[in-house]
């Protein structure tokens, strides 16, 4: 499967444990995502808050570069990146004049043929029924709370993925791996996002609610597909415990961690040992 790979700032920066996990897991499934050359920032929140055209131009350049480098599908593991890429593609699709304008700004032709995929969609592409036979260690002890975060399923008319109110695509993967995903209330609630630096108290409050609800519904870990959410729930869990005087101790796994473990990879290969909240022994 020929797959372009757009890491974005997160997977090369503070969430490079996600990249490690992703490469190990997908590699085991014989998928080698190829990082596109000379990619640039997708714009994330900063661009669209400042300048509309910039917020389209930045992701558009990445789409165009991937096309130019001969790809038809591109994995963007960070939901913020994938949402911005999809939004730019959609706006240019609807407005031919905009497409021409942006193409001239970014100095590359953006034809719109490239398909942007999130991590769950990549697993769906590989085929859950083809991954299942490769499962060596069914995760029978795992009771994950599948955490989608705010961006995987929204805005619905942009990302067009799963049900924005009651998503189930991650649970389907968990069930396939033999785990027992719990039904809980905070699957699409915000973790506090980029407020980690600017307004930490907000992040602690919102992420605490997520952890508390997961625990209340019987989860013994959380699974997430977003590196930002991972930071807020994992790296900040200690601060949350301290502020709220409560002990959670809930490991936060990337989706590729869980799939990788089921496929027989070790915690070290997947980079799980680098997480802040350690796995129980």
């Amino acid at each position: 499967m020929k797959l372009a790979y757009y890491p974005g700032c997160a997977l090369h920066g503070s969430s490079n444990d996600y990249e490690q996990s992703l490469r190990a897991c997908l590699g085991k499934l014989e998928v080698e995502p190829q990082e596109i050359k000379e990619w640039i920032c997708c714009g994330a929140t900063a661009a669209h808050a400042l300048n509309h055209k910039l917020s389209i131009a930045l992701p558009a350049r990445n789409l165009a570069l991937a096309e130019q480098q001969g790809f038809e599908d591109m994995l963007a593991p960070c939901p913020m990146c994938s949402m911005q890429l999809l939004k730019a593609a959609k706006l240019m699709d609807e407005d031919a004049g905009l497409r021409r304008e942006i193409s001239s700004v970014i100095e590359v032709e953006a034809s719109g043929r490239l398909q942007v995929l999130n991590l769950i969609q990549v697993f769906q592409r590989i085929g859950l029924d083809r991954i299942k036979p490769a499962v060596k260690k069914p995760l029978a002890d795992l009771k994950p709370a599948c955490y989608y975060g705010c961006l995987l399923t929204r805005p619905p008319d942009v990302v067009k993925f799963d049900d924005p109110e009651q998503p189930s695509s991650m649970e389907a993967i968990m069930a396939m791996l033999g785990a027992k995903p719990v039904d809980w209330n905070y699957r699409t609630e915000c973790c506090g996002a980029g407020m980690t630096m600017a307004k930490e108290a907000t992040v602690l409050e919102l992420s605490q609610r997520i952890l508390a609800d997961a625990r209340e519904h019987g989860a013994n870990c959380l699974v997430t597909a977003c590196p930002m959410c991972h930071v807020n729930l994992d790296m900040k869990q200690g601060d949350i415990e301290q502020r709220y005087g409560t002990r959670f101790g809930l490991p936060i796994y990337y989706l590729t961690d869980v799939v990788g473990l089921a496929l027989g990879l070790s915690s070290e290969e997947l980079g799980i040992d680098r997480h802040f909240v350690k796995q129980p022994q």
Partner: protein
Amino acid sequence: MSRIGVFVCWCGENIARTVDVAEVASAAAKIPGVRCSVHYKYMCSDPGQAMIREKIESEKLDAVVVASCSPHMHLKTFRKTAQRAGLNPYLVEMANIREHCSWVHHQRGEATAKAAEIIRMSVEKVRQNHALQAIRVPVTRRALVIGGGVAGIQAALDIADAGYEVVMVEREPSIGGKMAGLSETFPTLDCSQCILTPRMVEVGQHPRIKLYSYSEVEAVDGFVGNFTAKIRQKARYVDISKCTGCGECWNVCPLKRNPSEFDFKMGMRPAIYVPFPQAVPARPVIDSKTCAKLIRNGCGLCEKKCQAGAINFKDTDRVVEEKIGAVVVATGFQLYGIGKKQNGKLVGYGEYGYGKYKDVIDSLQFERLVSASGPTNGAIKRPSDGKEPKNVVFISCVGSRDNAKGLSYCSKICCMYTAKHTMLYKHKVHDGQAHVFYMDIRSGGKGYEEFVRRAIEQDGAKYYRGRVSKITEQNGKLIVRGADTLAGTPVTIEADLVVLAAAMRPAPGVTDLARMLNVGYDEHGFLLESHPKLRPVETNAAGVFICGACHSPKDIPESVAQASAAAAKTQILFAAEELTREPEIAQINEQTCAACYACYRTCPYHAIEQAEVRTPRGVFVKKTARVNPGLCMGCGTCVAACPSKSAELEGFTEQQIYSMVESLA
């Protein structure tokens, strides 16, 4: 025609301001064949019409052109005027120099020249008109009422009481519609069944009403005054003429746990059942999808128990034909399906948890809970654990007023019934608290505003102006997160029960019925009236009338009023000895017709017949196409389709149109 009269109207300032009417009149006088050409300020007024009649008599006019407004406005007026003066009304033409000229142009010179041309064309046209007689068709003075809810019941009783026979078709096993399932009605808090069932019984016993229950209309052919309806009586497996309604069968039926349609799945019913105790007819029906005998030849207890021998497992559907003269459509509504599976653009409201949480129900389900004849005998109980809810949240506008994920229109009745629900709840649960999340409160009827104030001031309902973002479940309670925009704060309520006021939508299958009847419908499936202001119960299909919620969301008083209106229109139809139809219809020249039947295939009104030409002795000569003068609407599609130019439209022949065009050259 060689004595044509031209009458140019000023229409006050509407025409005269832009068109030089005097010049136009004198230009028309010069057209060969025009005997006189005059102008007047208001041609449609009494003196104006008198002028036309005077000229017809004194100048012995053989045709008239009135140059004024659109024929939609006054063609009937001027035709009547001509007829009074002894001139055939179809020798009158209108030249539209208002909507087509003075109202769309500014430059006086250009507009005047154009008006003169329009008049010249009309003179050429009227020159070749034929004196026509209106077509007379007989009337079958029987009405078909489709739908046995409160609107259908009202229409049927009005028409039957006026002395005409009515055939009523209702698809459910009993008449009564949604109103039969309500608990109490606003603003009087009358018990719904108490006020409805006497009328249901009246329908069931009326000597002039023939009721087909558990039946559906399959086809309607014909035209106004002369319809033939095919009605499918679905197999009940119970002979209602033998059945006494004693109830032994449904008491003995072992399959007691089928979700009840009448209770909107809040309660259960057996496989052989009467939907509710006051049903009309009060006879059971067997559900062929769950009955053990019908599926695998098991059980059969009801047949053994029945002393009247009324059970008949060999029953089949029966199709009957009824001849009628008018149709009243009163098919009612269904509620918006809040669960996720929708058709087309509607995506449902997953954030409310309907279908996921047992204690999130819709408004009709709540009515069944509150109703004394409902699954809990009127006690308000949570579906999950049967406990009495102490905090109930009501959410308005679910599915309605939502351009993003739902329907754009306002469902009209929900503000009122939500206030009613808070009152009924409080009357039964004295220590309960009702919370309503609303966007606006629409209570415009008689006594309606006062009713809502009562709910708030006397029965303590709390109203929050804001939407609910999400409902989740925690420790058996429903956590409702919404906003109070007047206070400017978020609101979280731990509710025991949530009631969603879902939008009213037309009943399922109504668009198929509309196509059978040639009635239009809008993008939501609501049936289209002839004119929203002035003709709200007529449709563009002659002889077909609509009333009640099939037209648009409305409450009971409006449905009843519209039903009586539709009945009145039906009676107007029946009051005439014969019906007259406009004679400007298609004609087929049977000499030149090659019977290719292109016209037969393209006619949208199925007005063309395959006929034969025979000698007076009955010897077959040739096949031909023939227009049914009762059905033809004069659309001209056959004229365009005919390859041999055998089809022509009376009053709009090709020769006339060529003459009109040539007159401009």
